[in-house]
């Protein structure tokens, strides 16, 4: 089953019926319905996956074909024969079968050598830059996705533009000056919680909000009525999806997989949320922050990432929703090429950004950074992370990246849109 936004409004508000009998329907409902049918937004969805702690890109997309790799990593170098080979230089980590499959199907692109100017290589400082998208003003108080949410806000809209899904404190990237970006832990947070014995509570909620009011002057009353009606419809649709979901999709038993499964349900419910933010690594400094004995821990994190994301993409593809979804991973920085004395690596600069979805050109984007031309022991970045953001904002979401990022960035040719 696949719904468009228009179907959604038809079923919930009866848009077409309202349009044909305009005189009988309350004016504010007609206005909502006309706005919806005129609506020209693409309904595209962005899912961001934050890899907290600084993912070692060199052991994720492994440059096995370059002698420098094994030479610098006496204990951490992965054996070439175990990698999923992309070409004669690169291969995915041995536990990333899922990513390899997505890559082969054209559902995954690897933007190589992405990083940020002014990174001080501290977790907090670097993460702050990826969140604010403003390396010149590290103290900036809004996140790029928060600003994106603000940029599309309209006084008449009743949908939440973005949500954070996960068990940790909301990442700063969603901090908005005006818009409220909710955090949810599970799908139950978005269904209506009925009191015992109040079985008709939800229909009463809806019915009481639909009734016409005699006050035609106060603009807030119809606005709250519309929000309530949209909330009723949203809760209903999500309940319906939550009921039908089990069995339809196979997700591994990882936390990220559970989170992405929730995101998939919310996408299926088609409730107007354009941006989902999720996280792997436990938030703050943890997860990918391995300075000692990195191999085993990194291995399981990459496995979680790869298999969870692959399950998510498979689920969306089965539901014929993949063309509407773009996933983007990021981490605050990559790692040094040389391992330290404790079988770990230091904080670096460049790292790959993964994009997954149904409208990608696929393949590798940009060259792999040099393993000899280094910046404090780490591969240098050649692609400013804001070029990826700008591409996603403008070409995918249809927002104005200049409003969000403050200026124009050269876009990447990575999407089939």
């Amino acid at each position, binding site marked *: 089953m696949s719904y468009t936004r228009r179907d959604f409004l038809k079923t919930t508000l009866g848009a077409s019926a309202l349009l044909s009998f305009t005189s009988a329907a309350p004016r504010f409902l007609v206005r909502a319905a006309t706005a919806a049918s005129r609506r020209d937004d693409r309904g595209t969805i962005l899912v961001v996956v934050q890899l907290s702690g600084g993912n070692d890109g060199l052991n994720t997309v492994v440059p096995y074909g370059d002698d420098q790799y094994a030479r610098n990593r006496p204990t951490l170098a992965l054996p070439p024969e175990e990698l999923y080979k992309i070409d004669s230089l690169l291969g995915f980590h041995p536990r990333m079968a899922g990513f390899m499959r997505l890559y082969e199907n054209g559902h995954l692109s690897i933007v190589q050598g992405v990083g940020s100017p002014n990174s001080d290589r501290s977790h907090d400082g670097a993460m702050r830059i990826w969140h604010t998208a403003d390396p010149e003003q590290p103290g900036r108080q809004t996140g790029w996705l928060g600003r994106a949410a603000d940029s599309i806000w309209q006084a008449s809209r009743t949908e939440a533009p973005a949500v954070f899904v996960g068990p940790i404190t909301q990442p700063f990237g969603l901090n908005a000056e005006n818009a409220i970006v909710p955090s949810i832990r599970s799908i139950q947070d978005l269904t*209506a919680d009925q009191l015992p014995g109040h079985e008709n509570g939800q229909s009463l909620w809806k019915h009481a909000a639909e009734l016409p009011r005699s006050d035609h002057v106060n603009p807030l009353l119809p606005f709250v009525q519309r929000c309530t009606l949209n909330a009723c419809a949203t809760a209903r649709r999500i309940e319906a999806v939550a009921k039908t979901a089990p069995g339809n999709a196979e997700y591994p038993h990882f936390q990220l997989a559970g989170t992405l499964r929730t995101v998939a349900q919310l996408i299926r419910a088609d409730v107007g949320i354009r941006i989902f933010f999720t996280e792997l690594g436990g938030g703050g400094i943890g997860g990918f922050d391995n300075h000692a004995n990195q191999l085993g821990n990194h291995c399981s994190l990459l496995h979680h990432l790869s298999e969870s994301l692959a399950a998510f993409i498979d689920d969306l593809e089965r539901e014929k929703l993949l063309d509407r979804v773009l996933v983007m991973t990021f981490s605050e920085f990559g790692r040094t090429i040389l391992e330290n004395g404790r079988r770990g690596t230091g904080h670096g600069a460049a790292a790959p950004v993964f994009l997954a979805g149904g409208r990608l050109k696929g393949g590798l984007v940009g060259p792999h950074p040099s393993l000899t031309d280094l910046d404090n022991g780490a591969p240098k970045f050649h692609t400013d992370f804001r070029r990826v953001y700008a591409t996603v904002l403008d070409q995918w979401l249809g927002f104005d990246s200049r409003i969000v990022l403050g200026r124009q960035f050269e876009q990447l040719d990575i999407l089939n849109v």
Partner: protein
Amino acid sequence: MDVQVEKARGRLESVQSRPAVAEKLSDPGWAWAPYEPDVDRPWNLAKAGHLYRRAAFGAGWDQLKQALSDGPQRTVDGLLSPQADTEAFNRTCDEYEVSVGSINDLRAWWLRRMIQTPHPLLEKMTLFWHSHFATNGSEVKNARLMQQHIRLLRGGALKSFAGLLEDISRDPAMLIWLGADANRKARPSDNFARPLMETFTMGSGHCTEKDIQEASRAFTGWFVLRGKLIYIPREHDGSVKYILGREGNFTSDDVLRIVLEQRATSQMLVHKLYRWLICETEKPDEITIAPLVESFAKDYDLLKLVETMLRSNLFFSSAAYRRRIKCPVEFALGIVKGLEAMVSTTQLAEDLAGLGQNLYYPPTVKGWTGGRYWIDSVSMIGRYNLASALLRGSGPYGDKLNPWAIAQEHGCSEAESAARFLVDLFLQNDLDPNVYETLMKAARTTAGTDSGGLEKGMRCFAHSAVTLPEFHLA
């Protein structure tokens, strides 16, 4: 139920159903004159509820009844300066807070104070200043400094804005949050001067980049070291500065004096308080608020300004009634205050954060924008679910809130009268007849006959009442 209440409740006498012929909204003399009830604009339950929503966090039934018999001006007297010993209450609360180890726990203590205080207007204004001088604990990372910060806001909330501004300019939490904790002569930073001029006082567009840079030099010499404010004279730039047309060897205090001399400062604050206390749907026209701006510019007396607003014809007019969207705190406490009990505020602080209002952590230095931003389909589901959690009778909030018990306490003995009571309590019965009938019809079908069924039924009924669109309006 009293005859007086019966008389005062009716939908016929509600503010909005009567044409506003008697309101001379555009006449400043009329707008700011104290409201005296008359035949066209009677004092009623709806207006008492309105006053308690704006100047407090809602009211219990006894307060509403008392307000009806006291009339508007005496009720405002009590809200401005309650008879109970507010200072002793706040001292006790402060003592508890000092021993609290985390900022998250401070949120719970503040909510508790909002619910129990004998002076709710003071907390309401403290919340206003928390959004005006918005300081986010995640950057300060120090519960003691955040406690001092909110205490500072409370201490000045209804006194002099000039004094409050001076305290804020020396508040370690504020300076740490803004990254203005090291103002070196060699590297003056505009981290405090910019929000001071653009956000806290005049508002944007009233000063130039140059004014901000010059003012930044006046703030050199101030540092926060180990949570304490210190002044290092050799780090102060004592040379001449040019600020807003003035010239002198200005210090930080001079900058505050200069921005307070600007009419734009008074104007900005009057506008902002108007939006908080009176109406957020339309800006007041300049002629209407001119007398307040003039007067406030002279003394920056907050109590006087707030008092003028709360007593006014405009405040009690149709231009103000239900013309604000409740912030999450107002939504939740409206339920709690109405049902006269204390709930777990640790849980409540978390739930309010989920609705977008994380106390002690405002999103930016500009605070919460609020208004329509508070509400969308997702936060509306969140409010619905918070009401369910509060009224469930079990779970994280326990059985503290019991609508049926409260209705009985106030003389109701069966479902119909209890339902009417709850509509009076939460909505002052100011609903369109069709909405009211729909609600009452539901009450008849949900409520059982035995007392257990009635308790359950009234929980459901109260839930339906507080999830009506009207209840989200302040």
